[in-house]
Structure formats: C-alpha cells, structure tokens
C-alpha cells in the first residue's frame, strides 16, 4: 500500500479520504489533504532556500496544527527533523543548532523571545515567523506561494528521518539518529499492537522531543487516524487534561506514569465522560502497581500496556496488563520482546546470563538508533557487537537497565545500572528502595538518591510525597522500609515534598532533587 518512507501515508490518505482529520488541536482540525498540501509547500520552500537531502531542520515551536506541517514538510524535502524543546534555554538551543549543523528552523511567532538572541550568530532560514526577530524569516503566507506538488527527492528507508536530543551525562545533550526504516518499524508496531483504525483519535500528550511522540504522529498516520495535539498548558493541569480527553473524544493515549497518577489524584475523572478512551499505553519509568490498579478500577473498559524501550530502541518490549489483576504490589513487568526485537541479557563481563539471573538488557531491534550524532566516543561504548555470519556483526544497544528474566519469559526491570550504588560495602539498587517506599499505601510517590558521605561511601536519602497531609507519618514509612529492606538499604532520612521537580517529559528530576536536598539540607 505504501512506499518505504515514514511520510508516505500522508499522500496516500490525502487521496483515499481527503477530508478526514489528520491532526486536531483544541477543536481545530487539519485534514489529510490540507496536511498534504501544506507540507508539500513547506518542503518546496525548504528546497528552494537551500535544504539538501540529509540536511537537518530544527522544529522549535509549541503544539499547534503547524507542527504537523513542519514534521512532514521536512521529511518530504528529504530532510531530517530535529525536535527542540520549546522551553529550552537559549544556550541549549544554540548548542543543538551548532552540534547538528542546523541551517533551517521551523518555528512560530510565539517563540520570538527565544529566537531573538540567535540574531547575529544564526544565518540560516526561520520558517513560520512573521515578526521581526533579526533573522532571515519566511512567513506561512510566503510558504503557501510554493508548489503544492510533492517534490522529487531521492531518499531511501536507510536514510535518517529524525535526530532526537536527550540529556547527556557530560552536561551536553546527545542526538540519537533514527532512520525512516526504524521509524516505520516503531510506528507499525504501535498501530498493530493497539489495532488502530482511521476512527481512532490519538492524543499527543508528550512533547515532540520525547520519543513517545513518534508513536503519536506516525502510528496514527500509518492508520489514517487523527493525532490530537494536547496544548502544553492542558498537560500541566490534570483536570484540564481529563476534560480534553472528553471534549476531543480521545481513544488512545501513550504517556508517562506521572500523567496517569495526576489524572487519578487530581483529574476529577468522575466528573468527565471518558467512554471514548479504549487504550492507555505508558512508559518512561516504572509505575507503582497500586496506582495502576486504582486507575484500572476507574476505567474498567480500557486496556493498559506497559511499554518499555529507551529512546535508542523504542518499544522493544511491552506488557499488556491482564484485565483483572490480582492485588499485587510487585513492580509491573516490562513484558516480553516486541516483534522484530531481540533481547540479550549479559553479566558484567559480557557473558550471557542464565535465566533467573539479573543482568544488563541489550537490545537488537528494527527500531534501533543508528547511533549518536557526532559522538564517536559514545557510539563506541553504547553498542555491543556479536559475531554473526558474514562481515556484519549483530549490533545490540546496551540499555544500562538491569533486568531479570523469569521462566515464563517475562522481563522485570530492576533498575538502572548507574542507579546501583555501593553503600558501606553493600550493593543497593536505588530503584528497588524506591519501589518499596512506593508500595506503602499513604505514599503517593517516592524518589531515592545517593549522596557522597564523609567516609567516601554513599548515603541513601529519600523524598516522599504523601497522598494527603493528614496521613503523612514519615516514621511509619521508615518502619515499613525496615520490614522489607536490608538495614543498609533503608534510607538514612526521609524528606517530605509537596511535589517533585520534573523533567520536561514528566519524569522525576532526581538530579535537581539531589541538589535541593544537598544544598538546602531540606526541601
């Protein structure tokens, strides 16, 4: 039906069902035929102004209907789109532009405060901007004067579709390269797993620079469905978000556990008609079983899937939560490998683990990244090569995640390799401590960190958010932890927080949390 490129379905559905909505945003819609035309015009504008196949194009804007035009316009021009967090500080924006060699940026008037500081250093083109920011700008009206025919560009599915920057341990973000082939694998996995049809309306809750958005946009377009963009302010208010699900008749959501917990606790779900919702996928970090159970009780007709996969190898394993889970407080499994993915679990010395032993999960998958942009140092260490037949070895991505494989084939996530610390000579999984604290009924969320102590070892500290102020007894939580954990793994102190600092993708920002505890002694 389609060609081999991730943007091919747009032209297909523009022919097959031209009036059907490709994108929705706060009540407004863009049909497949409109998206096809606007993205062709942008592609032609990009080419006319110098973009060559393989050229990188920054996408720097908040959620809007133009976001769809931007993504598909870049791809149709043979370019590689580079999502940049619209909340990025200027220094990070500049770093990505320089590191990735970006000469074209698709943006919006609303970004003028962030774009203006680029004047004098960025000499490329900025599209979608009509206000004076001291840069070479091209308005949407000007873009609309270009041809609405698909430009003739020769690229193949091995070529890159997008580069996604994520935080790097050195303090500089690192860009993961993903091909059309990998993107299609991810998109088709999602479309098939959830059995998407053109009647589905998939929420795009995650920001574009977070890899869940690849499912949102591309699994949707594989199916001729509608991706409904969630405005950023709505994502910050749980009750606005649940109401958005109702108003926009959202049927499928892929988000992080934090969003689901917020929905449960502050989303006023009982006051909304959420009957359109049929499938919730979540990933990014573990969810406490008690929250998932409570959510499943509130949404008995909705299916839930835990999706695991670092941005380097998205959706490489998943676990469909059984319809009526027994009360359990064990961490939710990450399931079994997805089709076209292969797991290898290795000991520290690189030898393959026996079933039942824990080790680092390494992944070979059709969704695998082609490596980090401009970072040969990372590319050398992030991948494990195993001899295969012929001159090409099998390449696995070392996830840095410690897992355990059970006899039934199910994988359990135990923690990050770099979240394994030594305290007073004992090895402790910080994520395991966190899971124990999270299991306590009065605890809403918990985070553990390790800070250096005066003896050259590490001290474990924990921060806790209670469900309600009336039941916030730190002593009871410690008693619970002491009853389960070995004494050396029990946090030295607990800090009660009203809310956790979060990363832009909604995960707990443990680095910021540690800074706060260490610098202020408290929160």
């Amino acid at each position, binding site marked *: 039906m389609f060609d081999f490129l991730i943007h091919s379905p747009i032209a297909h559905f523009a022919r097959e069902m031209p009036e059907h909505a490709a994108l929705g945003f706060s009540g407004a819609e863009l049909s497949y035929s409109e998206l096809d035309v606007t993205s062709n015009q942008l592609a032609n504008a990009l080419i006319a102004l110098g973009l060559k196949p393989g050229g990188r194009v920054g996408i720097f804007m908040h959620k809007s209907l133009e976001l769809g035009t931007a993504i598909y316009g870049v791809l149709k021009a043979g370019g590689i789109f580079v999502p940049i967090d619209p909340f990025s500080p200027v220094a990070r924006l500049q770093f990505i532009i320089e590191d990735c060699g970006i000469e074209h940026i698709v943006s919006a008037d609303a970004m003028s405060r962030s774009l203006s500081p680029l004047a004098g250093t960025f000499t490329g083109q900025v599209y979608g901007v009509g206000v004076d920011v001291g840069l070479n700008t091209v308005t949407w009206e000007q873009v609309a004067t270009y041809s609405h025919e698909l430009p003739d560009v020769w690229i193949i599915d091995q070529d890159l579709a997008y580069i996604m920057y994520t935080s790097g341990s050195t303090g500089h973000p690192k860009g993961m390269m993903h091909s059309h082939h990998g993107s299609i694998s991810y998109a088709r996995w999602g479309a098939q797993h959830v059995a998407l049809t053109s009647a589905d309306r998939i929420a795009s809750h995650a920001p574009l620079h977070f890899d869940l958005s690849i499912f949102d946009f591309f699994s949707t377009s594989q199916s001729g469905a509608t991706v409904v963009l969630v405005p950023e302010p709505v994502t910050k208010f749980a*009750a606005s978000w649940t109401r958005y699900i109702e108003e926009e008749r959202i049927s499928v959501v892929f988000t992080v556990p934090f969003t689901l917990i917020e929905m449960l606790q502050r989303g006023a779900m009982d*006051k909304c008609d959420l009957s359109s919702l049929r499938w919730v996928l979540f990933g990014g970090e573990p969810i406490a079983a008690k929250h998932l159970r409570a959510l499943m009780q509130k949404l008995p007709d909705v299916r839930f899937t835990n999706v695991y996969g670092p941005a380097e190898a998205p959706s490489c394993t998943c676990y469909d939560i059984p319809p009526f889970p027994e009360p359990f407080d064990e961490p939710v499994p990450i399931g079994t490998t997805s089709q076209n993915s292969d797991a290898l679990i290795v000991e520290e010395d690189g030898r393959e683990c026996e079933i039942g032993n824990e080790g680092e999960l390494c992944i070979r998958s059709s969704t695998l990244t082609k490596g980090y942009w401009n970072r040969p140092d990372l590319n050398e260490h992030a991948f494990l090569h195993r001899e295969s037949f012929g001159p090409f070895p099998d390449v696995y991505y070392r996830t840095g995640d410690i897992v355990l494989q059970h006899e039934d084939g199910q994988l359990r996530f135990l923690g990050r390799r770099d979240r394994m610390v030594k305290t007073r000579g004992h090895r402790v999984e910080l994520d395991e401590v966190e899971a124990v604290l999270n299991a306590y009924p009065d605890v809403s969320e918990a985070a553990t960190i390790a800070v250096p102590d005066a003896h050259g070892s590490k001290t474990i500290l924990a921060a806790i958010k209670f469900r309600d102020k009336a039941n916030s007894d730190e002593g009871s939580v410690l008693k619970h932890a002491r009853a389960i954990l070995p004494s050396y793994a029990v946090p030295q102190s607990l800090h009660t927080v009203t809310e956790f600092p979060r990363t832009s993708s909604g995960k707990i920002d443990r680095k910021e949390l540690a800074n706060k505890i260490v610098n202020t002694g408290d929160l």
Partner: protein
Amino acid sequence: MLRTFIQEEILNDPNFPIEADEDLLLSETLNSLSVTLLIVHLEAACNVQVPPEDVIVENFGTLKRIEHYIKRRTGSSN
C-alpha cells in the same frame, strides 16, 4: 499579593516581569510543581478550598484568571 508570591516564592526573582494576561504555563512562569505550591499557598492565605476539578487552565492560566477565581471562591460560601 499573588504576583509577589509567584515572583518571590516560586521564581526567586522579585523583579521578574509577569503580565496579567500572560499565559503562565507557556511562558514557563509556572509548571506542574509550582502550580501545586501556588494552590497550597492560596488555600492557606485566602482561606479557600480549591477542589481538583477547579484546577484547570481557565482558572489558573493567567494572573487575571487566578484573581477572578479566588474572588469568586471567597465571595461564595465554602
């Protein structure tokens, strides 16, 4: 009072400019962490209860909207 609280307690910058109609979330003046802090503060300072279903963009998206909302709540029985 509201502007001062956001400037001093949330942003740690008494001179940070905040317009009455500015979208506090899009300008990143507030985020989900600080919205929670703000509501805890408002509940204590204005002696109101803010039910979860009221914590929405329409009530908390801008300074003006927050002021209207609080005025409405303190004017009504709660």
